[in-house]
């Protein structure tokens, strides 16, 4: 190894430098105690990255640019220096002792991020989409509805949810609880909106994608409820041959037999389910697993996989405060809630009529379905619940409606005994409850308040304490499938396969009675797992993949500064018109109302989510809120978005003034389209005279987009177009291919002078190449992290599909 003699800075001792592998004179220093080698002129950050130390955060540094030290994220402590110094700018020197992680540095970095976010007038991922169990692209379909494109909106929803009309009526809308519009005024009627979109095209429903060619695989879906039908829908789209088998005459499961007509009309259910049958899915009714056939029978009949979606149809018995139970079969006047709703929806006689006095017990959805059905039948109805109003699992609207329609609420009341005269029920004795001391989970359980017993005279009692699946026949008829002590089917949590290979399960029978949307979500995931199973994939890998894809809260609430615009309320059937009939109570939006309501969406979605360094670091530093909400308008900036350029979208609201675009455009590319403008807090990167990017000398190279650490500069989604060029003058030199700084011409198969087309053998331009071009562009988006850590593999960040910046 050659050595050169040179004075070492600071020591003056005339030591000789070693030369490193590149022939550069090198020396060593330490980062967090680790000895690293650096060459003269190298910065601390660059030496760290070269040695695999990748956890020094930075937002404004790029290898090809001069450092600017603006973001203050890469600050490190250097022994002997009074204050932290930015590692991107400080040259490494022999013997430096660098510390990259201290409490003080973490505080500065975290506060820097907070400061950036406090003026980052934008959002990462829409919380509604995370809140929804099926993760519908909510801002996407709301934008489409606002633009009047209802069919496309329905198609977008159907990518993850096959029954948007049904869910629009029956879903408890967990998405709306998360709606960020509530920070401005009121949440958006997100759920009702996809119902509206689907209703507009219910006779000609779109499919999310074209159905794939038949695979020749057969899948049996047992149970035609939301989970089963969802699984059937997506399996059929994948080209599998699917047969749905149900014990009831008609498909729909609980949504047909458990949900009363006034919430959801069954003729509309039939119309929506046509979307499933149109894909070639077969239906067989009147066939009950465990009675008419066994699981082995299905495999014997040649099915490759089975999905168990048998639901939870067994009502829990009435439980008195002394823990005794009574069941409807041997107690007069006691009605099974599920049978009651089922009989009513089928038009069969029910033991409730205008003379009846009914007590419904419980606080869930079924409780209020029974309550409101009984009210409509003319009965005098009491609804008793052992906890308070806030603890009810039914939605507040449903409770309010129940009361307004005529039911009487008895809160903090638990049944002690039934009072009978002979074989006739004459009343029920209830006792008042009070909240006890908090238990180990911190929840205050209701306890009996002795001596407060009271009686409600009645002739019918409907206990609606929830349901559980009937798995009594599993050991003999559903061979090899385990059940839990809660009578649910045991599966892998992510790929939904039971212990028996090829048998999957989801929905109420896997979770215990839950909401329709949760069942749909499981059906969808199970369909993907079954598809993978049928294609011979490793089940553990599928499980991992599905878990990774499951969206988790990602960030971030920033500045909702928007004018107030009141919610468009769903027109409801007046209470007096609801008496003694089962008319649909939600009357539906008019197209104008739907457009107006959809347009209220704040579009809390950023196309850079998942690729954004700011988001990545904010998650890393545990920021889920910032300390500077709710300021005055002059505390934040609200810039105009520049979408005039054909390829580059500019949203200064997301700019963090890192000036990477300024430097790359000036120093590397040359046109000098960007600069900093303004002073103090109002400093912002912009174009000269703030003209649109289109008016600058921009060469559309996209280098600024590539270096932008946030979503401030984004490539526009674009269709490739053919350009005219003078064939008679082109000499096919290929110079254009060579000079393009991004290999845009050289690496695509679509350009006839490209490397492939000039050099490759038999590579010709096909129509398909052009069709694949947009995907190709998306793949080309290079992860912006330095070193070899692609942003996509950060387990904390889940990318959204590429979307356009919204105006």
């Amino acid at each position, binding site marked *: 190894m050659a050595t050169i003699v040179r004075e070492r800075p600071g020591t003056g001792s005339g030591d000789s430098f070693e030369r490193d592998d590149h022939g550069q004179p090198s020396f060593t220093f330490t980062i967090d105690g680790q000895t690293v080698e650096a060459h003269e002129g190298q910065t601390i950050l660059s030496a760290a990255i070269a040695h695999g130390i990748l956890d020094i955060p930075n937002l404004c540094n790029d290898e090809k640019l001069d*450092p*600017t*030290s*603006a*973001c*203050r994220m890469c*600050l490190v402590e250097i022994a002997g220096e009074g*204050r*932290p*110094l*930015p590692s991107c*700018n*400080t*040259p490494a020197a022999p013997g430096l002792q660098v510390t990259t992680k201290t409490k*003080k540095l973490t*505080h*500065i970095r975290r*506060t*820097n991020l907070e*400061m*950036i976010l*406090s*003026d980052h007038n934008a959002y990462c991922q829409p*919380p509604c989409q*995370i809140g929804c169990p099926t993760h519908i692209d909510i801002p996407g379909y709301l934008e489409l509805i606002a633009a009047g494109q209802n069919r496309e909106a329905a198609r977008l929803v159907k990518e993850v949810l096959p029954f948007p009309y049904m869910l629009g009526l029956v879903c408890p809308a967990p998405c709306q609880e*998360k709606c*960020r519009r509530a*920070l401005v005024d009121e949440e958006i009627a997100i759920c009702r909106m996809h119902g509206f979109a689907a209703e507009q095209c219910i006779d000609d429903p779109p499919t999310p994608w074209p159905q794939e060619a038949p695979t020749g695989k057969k899948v049996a879906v047992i149970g035609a409820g939301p989970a089963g039908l969802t699984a059937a829908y997506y399996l059929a789209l994948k080209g599998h041959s699917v047969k749905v088998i149900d014990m009831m005459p008609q498909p729909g499961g609980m949504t047909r037999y458990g949900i009363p007509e006034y919430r959801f009309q069954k003729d509309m259910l039939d119309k929506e389910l046509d979307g499933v049958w149109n894909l070639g899915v077969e239906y067989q009714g009147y066939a009950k697993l465990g009675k008419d056939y066994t699981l082995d029978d299905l495999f014997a009949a040649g099915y490759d996989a089975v999905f168990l979606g048998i639901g939870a149809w067994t009502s829990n018995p009435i439980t008195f405060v002394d823990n005794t139970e009574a069941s409807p079969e041997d107690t007069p006047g006691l009605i099974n809630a599920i049978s009651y709703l089922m009989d009513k929806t089928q038009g069969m006689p029910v033991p409730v009529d205008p003379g009846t006095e009914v007590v419904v017990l419980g606080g869930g959805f079924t409780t209020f379905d029974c309550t409101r059905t009984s009210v409509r039948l003319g009965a005098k109805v009491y609804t008793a619940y052992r906890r308070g109003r806030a603890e009810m699992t039914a939605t507040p609207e449903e409770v309010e409606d129940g009361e307004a329609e005529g039911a009487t609420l008895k809160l903090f009341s638990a049944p002690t005994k039934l009072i009978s005269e002979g074989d006739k029920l004459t009343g029920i004795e209830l006792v008042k409850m009070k909240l006890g001391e908090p238990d180990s989970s911190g929840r205050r359980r209701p306890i009996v308040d002795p001596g407060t017993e009271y009686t409600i005279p009645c002739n019918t009692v409907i206990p609606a304490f929830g349901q559980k699946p009937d798995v009594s026949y599993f050991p003999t008829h559903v061979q090899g499938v385990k059940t839990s002590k809660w009578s649910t089917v045991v599966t892998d949590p992510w790929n939904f396969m039971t212990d028996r290979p090829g048998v999957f399960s989801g929905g109420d029978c896997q979770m215990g009675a839950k909401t329709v949307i949760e069942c749909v979500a499981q059906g969808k995931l199970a369909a993907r797992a079954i598809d993978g199973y049928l294609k011979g994939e490793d089940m553990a890998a599928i499980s991992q993949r599905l878990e990774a894809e499951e969206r988790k*809260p990602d*960030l*971030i*609430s920033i500045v909702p500064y928007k004018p107030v615009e009141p919610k468009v309320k769903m027109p409801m059937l007046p209470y007096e018109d609801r008496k003694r009939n089962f008319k649909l109570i939600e009357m539906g939006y008019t197209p104008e109302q739907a457009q107006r309501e959809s347009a209220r969406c704040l579009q809390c979605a950023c196309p850079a989510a998942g690729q954004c360094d700011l988001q990545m670091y904010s998650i890393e530093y545990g920021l*889920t*809120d*910032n*300390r*500077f*909400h*709710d*300021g*005055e308008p002059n*505390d934040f900036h609200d810039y105009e978005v520049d979408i005039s350029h054909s390829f580059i979208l500019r949203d200064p609201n997301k700019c*963090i*003034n890192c000036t990477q675009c300024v430097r790359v455009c000036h120093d590397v590319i040359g046109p000098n389209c960007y*600069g*900093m403008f*303004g*002073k*103090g*807090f*109002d*400093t912002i990167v912009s174009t000269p005279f703030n003209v649109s990017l289109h008016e600058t000398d921009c060469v559309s190279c996209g280098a600024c987009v590539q270096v932008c650490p946030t979503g401030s500069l984004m490539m526009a989604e674009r269709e490739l177009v053919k350009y005219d060029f003078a064939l008679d003058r082109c000499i096919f030199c290929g110079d254009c291919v060579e000079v393009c700084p991004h290999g845009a011409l050289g690496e695509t198969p679509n350009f006839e002078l490209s490397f492939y087309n000039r050099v490759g053998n038999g590579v010709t331009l096909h129509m398909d190449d052009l069709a694949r071009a947009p995907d190709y562009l998306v793949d080309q988006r290079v992860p912006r992290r330095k070193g070899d850590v692609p942003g996509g593999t950060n387990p904390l960040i889940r990318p959204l599909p590429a979307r356009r910046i919204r105006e």
Partner: protein
Amino acid sequence: MPDGTSRALIPTATTLADYQKQRGFQAYQRASGQGAQGAASILEAVRQAKLRGRGGAGMPTATKWQVVRDAVATRGGPPYLVCNAYDADLKSLVAATLLANQPFLVLEGIMLAAQAIGAREAYLYMHSTNRTGYAAVTAALNEARNGRLLGDLTITVVGVDLGFMGGEETTMLEAIKGRRPMAQQRPPYPAQVGLGELPTAIANLETLVQVVNIVRDPAAFAKNGTPASPGTKYVSVYDVAGNGTLLEVPFGTTVAAILKNAGITVGTDTTRGVVVGGPEGGVLPLTQLTTAFDYEPLAQSGTIVGSGTIEVLGPQTCMVDWARERTKYLTEQSCGKCIPCRTGTKRIAGTLAGIMSDVGVSSDLDLLNEFADYVPDGSLCGFGWHATHPLRTALRYYPDDFKLHLQGKCPTGACVPVRSHRFVTKGVL
């Protein structure tokens, strides 16, 4: 002007003849006649005199020049010299007065410094709005050029109007380079890598004037000041009504004595506090006026020498409002480059405005204390390092003002609310 601790400014000399009558250019001619030895002797004299930079930071001038000379040995030269004659603090009268009254003295200082470091090009960086000073200094420059006094030294006058940020040294260099005036990260220091990537010495014009004094008469210079900071300093003193006086005081004079010399009487009924150091200076209560006007004692009291401006605040001053006003000014003056300074000062001002408008809560004080350290720790340049002195001293010396405002009452009754609601932390998700 009363004497004793301060002396009147040296007489005006706007023509070469006048200046030469006041021993003008003798020091320079003596030094320049000796060549390299002369350069070394100037540096040595400055080192012996322990001259500290008058720009506010108080770095020993000789050390800086030595760094420049060393850097020239390794990086090449010739180095540049920049004379900072820019009154960043609009209330500072130093540069304006010296340029208008003693342009030749400033030029001689530049010439001595250029010789000491071996510079052949120097820039005189000043306020473009200072018309009198500009006229005087360009006339003097012409006369000096015509009199062949400058030798091979080129002096270029650069006039800018860049607000408070324009006084930051790296910003100054960017402006001279013709770039957007924003601060640059140090190290590397301008003394090593400055204009044209070459070593560049930056000195305040007052420092250079003191260099002339030192070379002329080291003993007279050493007579004044403290052992750590010998010599005198020009200070601009303002009374409550806003009338300013320029004084020359020896380092170590107490703030109270300076006020007395300026003819300002302070008392609890007329004075709420005294601001020392200009826009980034802290406020001292009457009990702290015994603080000596010197770098270290002022730092201990929570403020800085800064621009050498001393202002008296009237009895109606609410310190919450005063700190808000100062921070808001700094928010507007920041170059906007680094996050802590650009947004940190804005949030401090916003939080102070919340307290001042009686919508603050006690946890706002925790936030202010946190940010009083965060902004200096994280910031890129001296602007941010010193930006929280007003906040810190207000919190330190006037905690009751904050307490009263948090209870919904202004201590002086002078505050007019500017915010209708405070920042709120909301956990979403």
